[in-house]
């Protein structure tokens, strides 16, 4: 039975022992308003949870890479990579996916959920098929990152306010648009990460092109992709003898 706090309970007039829920031993009791809601969550029973075979293999493979795989009760190192696997498979960290992962890892679902909710890139609510992260941190902001985010919101119908605070889905639910902190590509400012690949420097008009390309399933702005960029200083042949006569790698 779940203990219930009496409805006329007034903490201002209560005696210390009134804070202890009736019928519960003291060490299991909680303070006012936070009564235990039943049994602690259990590690999912492999006999009860159905896990797709390929998913199980994928997860087990990752767990086995870490030295703590044999630690009794705490083989947790793989938590983040495993949540990545769940997210890649189901689009986001779905409750069902988390239970399956927890079952293979033999940890509680709540544990994985607490990890997922800590990290910005792991999503605990549905996200679109595509993600656009627009950097609005210092360097990008100086070069127009806010306006770029505006343009993405205008084009997709995502809510600008929500996009600036964790992300917002486009009107059709296909694209997640989110303002983001520095993505480590300030040389491309203002830039965006589109489906985990970097593009920049972008003009406001590029937002519309990118969204159209995503919807048509085309390659996104190839000429502005990070991977196509050379070094900022161009090709430079060293003349310094310490460099040219070096005995290490990069000879």
């Amino acid at each position, binding site marked *: 039975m779940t203990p219930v706090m009496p409805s006329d309970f007034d903490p201002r007039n209560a005696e210390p022992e009134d804070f202890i829920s009736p019928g519960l031993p003291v060490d299991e009791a909680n303070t006012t308003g936070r009564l235990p809601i039943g049994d602690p969550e259990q590690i999912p029973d492999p006999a009860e949870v159905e896990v797709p075979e390929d998913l199980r293999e994928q997860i087990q493979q990752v767990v086995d890479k870490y030295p703590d795989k044999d630690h009794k009760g705490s083989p947790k190192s793989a938590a983040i990579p495993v949540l990545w696997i769940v997210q890649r498979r189901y689009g986001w960290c779905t409750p069902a996916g988390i239970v399956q992962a927890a079952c293979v890892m033999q940890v509680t679902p709540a544990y994985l959920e*607490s990890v997922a909710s800590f*990290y910005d890139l792991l999503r605990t609510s549905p996200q679109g098929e595509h993600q656009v992260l627009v950097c609005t941190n210092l360097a990008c902001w100086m*070069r127009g990152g806010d306006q770029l985010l505006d343009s993405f919101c205008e084009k997709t119908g995502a809510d600008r306010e929500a996009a*600036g605070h964790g992300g917002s889905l486009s009107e059709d639910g296909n694209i997640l648009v989110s303002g983001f902190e520095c993505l*480590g590509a300030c040389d491309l400012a203002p830039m965006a990460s589109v489906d985990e690949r970097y593009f920049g420097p972008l003009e406001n008009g590029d937002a519309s092109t990118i969204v159209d390309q995503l919807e048509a399933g085309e390659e996104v702005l190839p000429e502005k992709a990070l*991977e196509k960029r050379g070094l900022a*200083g161009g090709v430079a042949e*060293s003349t310094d003898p310490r460099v040219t006569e070096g005995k290490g*790698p*990069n000879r």
Partner: protein
Amino acid sequence: MIEETRVLLRHAEDPKMATLAGYESYGGYEVLKKALKEIEPEWIVNELEDSGLRGRGGAGFSMGKKVSFLPHTDDAKYLCCNADESEPGAFKDRELMQRNPHQLIEGIIISSFAAGIGHAFIFIRGEYDDQADILDRAVEEAYEAGYLGTNILGSGFSLELVVHRGAGAYICGEETALLDALEGKRGNPRLKPPFPAVQGLYGGPTLINNVETLSNVSHIVANGADWFKSFGTEQSPGTKVVSVSGCVKRPGNYEVELGVSLRDLIYGLAGGPLEGHEITAFYPGGSSSPVLTPAEMDLPYSFEAMADAGSMLGSGSIIVADDSVSIPRMALRTAHFYRHESCGKCTPCREGTNWTEKMLERVCTGEATPMDLDIISSVQDNIMGHCLCVLGDAMAMPVSSMVNKFRDEFEETIAEEASKAWSGSLDGLTESPGRDEPGGEEPGPGGVSPEHVRRQRLAGRGVPAGEDV
């Protein structure tokens, strides 16, 4: 104009370099073979210490010393390469991993060999998906070639290397939070001591170094400490990949000897300010370094010179602001970032970042008074040195430097925004509330009471829109 001194980025424009065959064609993995065959681990540790190589991830601590701190026991020891690179302004590790992943891997293997480490990790930020894929491929190649795994090249030395992707949290770059994240927990910093070198990952001795630090290792082992010391200054030997961004013509990564002048970096290599603009301030070492002004442009770019100027070299990332950038809003952006990334474990950081952001918001909407600037400064003083990790300080230092050095601009912003808000609130009114309206004691211009204006403003009305920060 100065030239780059490319050691780590040499031949990096060649796409071949990202593959094992390409790296080997430029002499890659030769040092490793030699080291495993004929070099004593102690010699490597000594040479690293002697070279004076300082950590490239922020704190600038001697890499060789850190290695020598690891106990010489048979306990399982670990190496974690810090590739989290989430400090605003920093993007050098991205370039190094993308263009030359094997240089990093070779550095990791040699460092592990020197310190008797059997398990190594590269903790890469989740956003760097492309680079993580590149590393995954490179690690696979290295396993196939026998440079990783058990009994490497028949030497009896074994090493496992795992590429571990993070999932978006700046705090995971802090070394002890990184360990927690690697252990599969929420990334919260730990109390130090014990330092990771003594008790780190899974409680074992752990060496944590930045990507660039480790990328230097094979060069030092191949050429010796004296060769390394011939670059840079006495206290800052070597070359440094410097990320320059913000309001400059050619933002990007430039590898230079430490000790070149800031002017050469910002005006020379990065091309100087954009047409028609002037530089007003810059962060010399990422967003957590106190800002410098053009008056300090001729300082040498070295750990010691930046510290003497009251700032720091940090990760080696220069963010340049010009006259189009509002310094108070820049301070607000900075505070906003740290407020968002604070893990919340300690009060001065959690509350301090939150209130600093709120107060700066008030500055930028004209609701603050000049006295609030003193309060902002005192809050920063109370954060510094009072937190578990240095994330709190990382906000306090730049914010307080901006308030101190650009106080006039803060005061002007307050005055300007306040008058805008005042006239804005007049525009928004259709009817003047009279004396008998609630709260309408003293009518202001146009019969509007100051109290009414204040309420309008508090309710978010009559404040110019579009200042969404």
